[in-house]
């Protein structure tokens, strides 16, 4: 099994775990962490893609690296925004549930996640 395949499989596993966590975890903080895991899987895939470009004799393809750096910045800002919203929600409502129906009322849920 070549290195590229190993990393490809790792990327697939990270994406799968991230998706699973994003769907099943009810707490927003865990959803945010799962999103980061999912994002890491995609970035790893970009790395694999760059490495495969190298097999074609171009050296290591620099374009996927540039894309990953941009992607990391975007994911970082997304995480920061989500955490800021989450903190604000916790300050306002005292809980961080995302479920439908009744608006969050104070003390109905354990804080944070």
């Amino acid at each position, binding site marked *: 099994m070549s290195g590229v395949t190993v990393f490809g499989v790792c990327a697939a596993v990270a994406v799968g775990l991230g998706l699973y966590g994003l769907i099943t975890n009810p707490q927003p903080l865990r959803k945010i962490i799962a999103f980061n895991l999912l*994002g890491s899987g995609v970035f790893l895939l970009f790395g694999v893609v760059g490495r495969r470009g190298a097999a074609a004799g171009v050296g290591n393809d620099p374009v996927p690296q540039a894309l990953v750096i941009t992607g990391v910045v975007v994911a970082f800002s997304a995480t920061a925004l989500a955490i800021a919203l989450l903190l604000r929600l916790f300050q306002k*409502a005292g809980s961080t549930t995302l479920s439908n129906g009744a608006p969050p009322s104070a003390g109905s849920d354990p804080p944070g996640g």
Partner: protein
Amino acid sequence: MLPPAPALDAITTTGGFLLVLSIVVPVAGVLLGFVLGDRYVRLVACAIIPLGLAIAVAILVVLPGSKGPIVYLLGTWPPPLGVALRADGLSAVMIAVTAVVICAVTAFAAADFSPSATETRAPFAFWILLLAIWGALNTIFLGGDLFTLYVALELLTFAAVPLVSLEGRAETLQAALRYLLFALLGSVLYLLGTALLYGRYGTLDIVLLSRRIGTEPTVFVAAALMTTGLLAKTALFPLHLWLPPAHAGAPAAASAILSGLVVKGSFFIIVRLWFNVMPGLPGFAATQLLAALGGAAIVFGSVVALRQERLKLLIAYSTLAQIGYLFLMFPLAFGASGRLESGGALAGGLLQAVSHATAKAAMFMAAGSIYARLGQDRIMALGGVGRILPISVLAFALSGLALMGLPPGGAYLAKELLLQAAAEKGQWWWAVVLQAGGIFTGAYVVLVLAHALAPANEPTTPDSAAPRIQELAALALALCSLLLGLVPWEAYLSIPHGVASDKFGLGALSKTLLPILGGAVVAILLGRWEHPPGRLSRWKALMVVVGPVRRAGLALSAIVEGCDNVLRQWPTACISLLTLAALFGASMLLSF
């Protein structure tokens, strides 16, 4: 080794700098706003907006003169090494509409978000975010490669999410967080698709990719992931869990932007992806699936809208239904050659997006004036508002008529184009859905107007402090939407000759009556009424017939609302997302 000769669309054309300006100017406004602080931010926005409008007009003027799209190569590097900005007719039209809607919203919001208010944070955030959304949308309309589009899409989301929670109440923060998390899931799927495409073809430039792309399993997976991710951001049924609370909870000016413009950003990328990157790929089954989701969105959105108690929630659900309308063009653009053709159906779909952007923004602004004046927006308690706020109610009525597809509105022209395409392709079932969509729209507009024009329950005191400019901004935008059919679109969109030339004749009148009368019937059968029509003695005889039908209709719509509640749960929505991705992949695979 000689470098390959640049292709025709790989050189900067005259007027290319306009494309850069249309992105740089709003972004410069954001930065300037940050530097000058909250005292001057409104001034900066008001100075930037006419400039942006002028650039949009300049692009509209230059485009017909240049052969093909306007192109600008950043740093004069041709793709695949560099990044290109391209403006074709679709981009030019969308940029112009965005500028018009933003102008109207600015006029509306100038009073609400003035720096003299006791609270300075919300006005500051509003103007900064407004300019940021504008810059992001223009980047989406001009972006020439898939990764630029990804970055622009994320910028759009990051600017739109805080707009939802501008008031800082717990419900709106919750709505914003749900919106952000679901949108992030969508954009990660899009990015995954981008990675797969780059890995296979070594470029993300739209023109180069469309030449290289073939029918391979990788491409099907990538296309399915990207489409589904974008659908989640567009809030097409059943991926709409975030839309109703987010659009109904935001302040009126923000709702107008979110509902009118922001959802069109991801919709536009879907159009680019399907029509420009891979017109030969989706196949018959995938286009039918996409439009079937649109049809379901029309039925669910409209029926649930009729059951809402609050006006803003009704309008938010109406947005859900209208988003469904946008996706009906895909099967109608599917030609005999097995490719999506940029013909009349595409023009119709884009016109639908344009007229929805203007009409729905006007509708939200009118609802905002009503909310500000009454202090609440329960539909049952709207009685007498027609007397207090005649201009706002008129704006609501006109934008409703425009949405229904009444001549000479943009939606009317769009509907005629789509109906003609349906007749040509022999897909009569989409013609039925198109007419039903008009009738459902008629139903909730009639329902609201019937309540608004009813006499007041208790006498209300006239308030002289109602800012007239807000009402006039809504009215101007509604009129704009109703007159869109008169604009010469042929220079920008490929409209077949002779479509909808008869805008004021008898034929047009009969098409007008169908959505209004049908809508009235549906509203009586499914709507909420404080005093059901049967209470009036004159209607007693009629009620013997209508009563059982209405009871059955209400039972059905209660079931639909229950389904909607289930679909808006987080796990259900995520599972629908993954199921849709699998279905799209499978349907594309089966076409070959």
